């Protein structure tokens, strides 16, 4: 329904808006209503988060995650922003910001539309509305969306200034000095001129900050060109010294990190800082997690996230807080603390349930039924470090899936089938279930299998052997043969 009037905005899996290239957030407000007073059919968007960017005004509903909807008003469609009316009434009521947008005849807000509609924003939260209005004006006047398309046209024009006179002068055959551009000398002269113009533009750009700002796009393209030339160029100079190789390595390293164009900062987000930061972190974390195989150290993420943000660093405390807020949102990652104090971020799919299922299936294999599962076996089959595997096995034990066996050979784990033993039908051997599988496996393997079968048979069908069964199961048979033998002798002949 909303799509009829306002274009929908895309959201990432964690509820952050998907931004256009070059789009940067300026301000984030919470508890904002969006509606159109004069148009009764316009849907009333209640209590959501409003994000002002350089290109659009985004409204995201604050409802349960997963069902969040988002709509956007392109700033290109805004015709006029009404100034805040100051009256006695407005001191007590929530501040309202009204602006006029152009709409197509069917009511949809569109930049090229002919009709006009007025949209009102009601700021219900404790926000500084005057600062927001001034930012709104700035963003609207900045016309970042328009300058993008025109800049790309002018960029290519100035790029050719910097990049070489070849395209333009090639046709005329004359360079700017009027010298003939032909033959080898022509090529050399062209090179010379190219170098001189680059030099000049470099000098101009770095005179002061404002100059750099205005020439920023040009500089970026220049940097890209340099990088491509020097990185992909053949290393014919075999005597490249260490510094060069080091700097090349640096350049390559930087390239590996994916940058965040619009990081959430205190200035832009204000009160919503931690929420938006945690959502942005959840989005960012996906790629490194996959590369690391599902689990990554929190400190590594701290470094990667800060690198992506550039100079807008977050403190370790901020990071920790953002991770702890994750529980409130429906994000596919979680924070996990180990007993040794190490904290990692892992995928929810890599969570305990899945690992337990894998451990269970491992423990039900005939080998594991005979000799049990050790931390190193689990580590190699599950593909994780032995300390990690041991941690998982201990967790599984505390949940009741496994039982431990501490012997001279080390720590081993067996499948737990206590819960299958029915106290009333204690003496019936079932043909199905884990217990039966274990019996079969245990019997098939051991040398004194017949002995064991006898033991089990008599133990189960003899009322006096009630306590014996518990001991038997507790001893986890095969590695503890000697103990079984001693019990057998103590309890009398089988």
């Amino acid at each position, binding site marked *: 329904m909303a799509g009829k009037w306002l274009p929908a905005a895309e959201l990432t899996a964690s509820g952050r808006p998907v931004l256009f290239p070059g789009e940067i957030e*300026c301000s984030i407000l919470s508890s904002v209503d969006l509606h159109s007073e004069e148009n009764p059919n316009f849907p009333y968007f209640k209590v959501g988060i409003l994000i002002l960017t350089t290109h659009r005004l985004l409204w995201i509903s604050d409802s349960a995650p997963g069902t969040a909807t988002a709509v956007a008003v392109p700033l290109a469609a805004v015709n006029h922003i009404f100034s805040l009316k100051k009256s006695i009434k407005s001191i007590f009521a929530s501040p309202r910001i009204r602006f006029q947008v152009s709409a197509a005849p069917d009511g949809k807000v569109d930049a090229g539309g002919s009709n006009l509609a007025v949209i009102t924003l009601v700021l219900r939260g404790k926000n500084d509305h005057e600062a927001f209005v001034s930012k709104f004006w700035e963003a609207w006047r900045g016309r970042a969306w328009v300058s993008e398309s025109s800049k790309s046209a002018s960029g290519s024009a100035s790029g050719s200034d910097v990049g070489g006179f070849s395209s333009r002068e090639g046709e005329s055959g004359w360079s700017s000095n009027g010298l003939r551009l032909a033959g080898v000398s022509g090529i050399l002269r062209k090179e010379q001129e190219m170098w001189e113009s680059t030099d000049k533009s470099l000098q101009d750009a770095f005179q002061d900050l404002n100059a750099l700002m205005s020439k920023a796009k040009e500089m970026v393209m220049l940097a890209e060109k*340099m*990088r491509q030339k020097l990185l992909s160029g053949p290393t014919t100079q075999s005597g490249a010294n260490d510094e060069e190789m080091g700097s090349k390595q640096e350049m390559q390293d930087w390239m590996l990190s994916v940058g965040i164009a619009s990081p959430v900062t205190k200035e*832009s987000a204000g009160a919503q800082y931690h929420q938006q930061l945690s959502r942005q972190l959840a989005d960012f974390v996906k790629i490194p997690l996959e590369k690391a195989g599902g689990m990554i150290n*929190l400190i590594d993420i701290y470094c990667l996230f800060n690198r992506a943000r550039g100079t807008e660093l977050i403190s370790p405390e901020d990071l920790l807080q953002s991770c702890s807020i994750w529980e409130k949102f429906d994000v596919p990652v979680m924070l996990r603390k180990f007993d040794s104090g190490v904290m990692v971020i892992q995928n929810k799919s890599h969570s305990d349930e899945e690992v337990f299922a894998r451990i269970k299936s491992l423990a039900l294999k005939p080998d594991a039924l005979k000799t049990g599962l050790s931390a*190193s076996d689990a580590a190699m089959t599950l593909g994780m470090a032995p300390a990690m595997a041991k941690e998982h096995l201990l967790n599984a034990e505390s949940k009741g899936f496994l039982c431990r066996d501490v012997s001279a050979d080390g720590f081993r784990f067996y499948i737990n089938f206590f819960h299958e033993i029915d106290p009333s039908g204690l003496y019936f051997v079932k043909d199905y279930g884990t217990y039966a599988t274990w019996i079969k496996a245990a019997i098939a393997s051991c040398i004194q299998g017949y002995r064991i079968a006898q033991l089990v048979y008599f133990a189960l069908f003899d009322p006096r052997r009630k306590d014996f069964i518990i001991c038997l199961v507790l001893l986890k048979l*095969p590695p503890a043969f000697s103990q079984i033998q001693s019990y057998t002798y103590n309890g009398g002949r089988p």
Partner: protein
Amino acid sequence: MRRRPGIGGLQTAAAARDQYRMLGENVAKIRTDLMKEQLSTFRSQLEDFARKHKNDIRKNPAFRSQFHEMCAKVGVDPLASNKGFWAELLGIGDFYYELGVQIVDICLATRVHNGGLIDLQELCNFLCQRRKSAHGAVSEDDCLRAISKLKVLGSGFEVISVGKRKLVRSVPTELNKDHNAILELAQAQGFVTVEEVEKRLSWPSGRATDALETLLDEGLAMIDDGHRDRKRRYWFPCASSLSSVGTDTLKI
């Protein structure tokens, strides 16, 4: 050039081609050199700007992203603030956070080579290289302080003292895949020695010893010092097959 017939003509043509080629190479070389010069000018200018106008850059978000793009493409580290007086005294301010990020960065980059264990002195050297034009070099004490600020994020980073040297471990035991590699090696004979590990997996000496010591702590390995050649062997009972052990006890 006049085309001459016959062998002489071919030779002249070949000589001419050679000359053109050399000229082309020369031009390319000059071009690359000039570009390198410009690149280094670009870099130093960017570094200066990053330092002097840091606050202004941060205030303007659109320009900031462009500045970062420039820095990223050219290879300049934008985290280059100076250590202020108060920062040093009270341990606050951006300097230590930036240093922390750079330290973790270096550890991540060298992890492939040293398995997560790096000498503190080496770390400081790498840092100084990265912060080339910084006013005042980075001391070991600064590194230690920056690492301690990261403690909030769990004990993933720790500083261990081995004799006089200090080592920084950036990979916690739970996430260390080195141990798996050693266990695989151990399956062949049931034991490994430090030399064998170093030779087969081409690790530096500290890495192998550290991993074996950790496995010892975990209870997965046992030491055997009684062999004739006096080399310490690490036995892995879990890695060897159990049935051979079981049959012996049964015959009691």
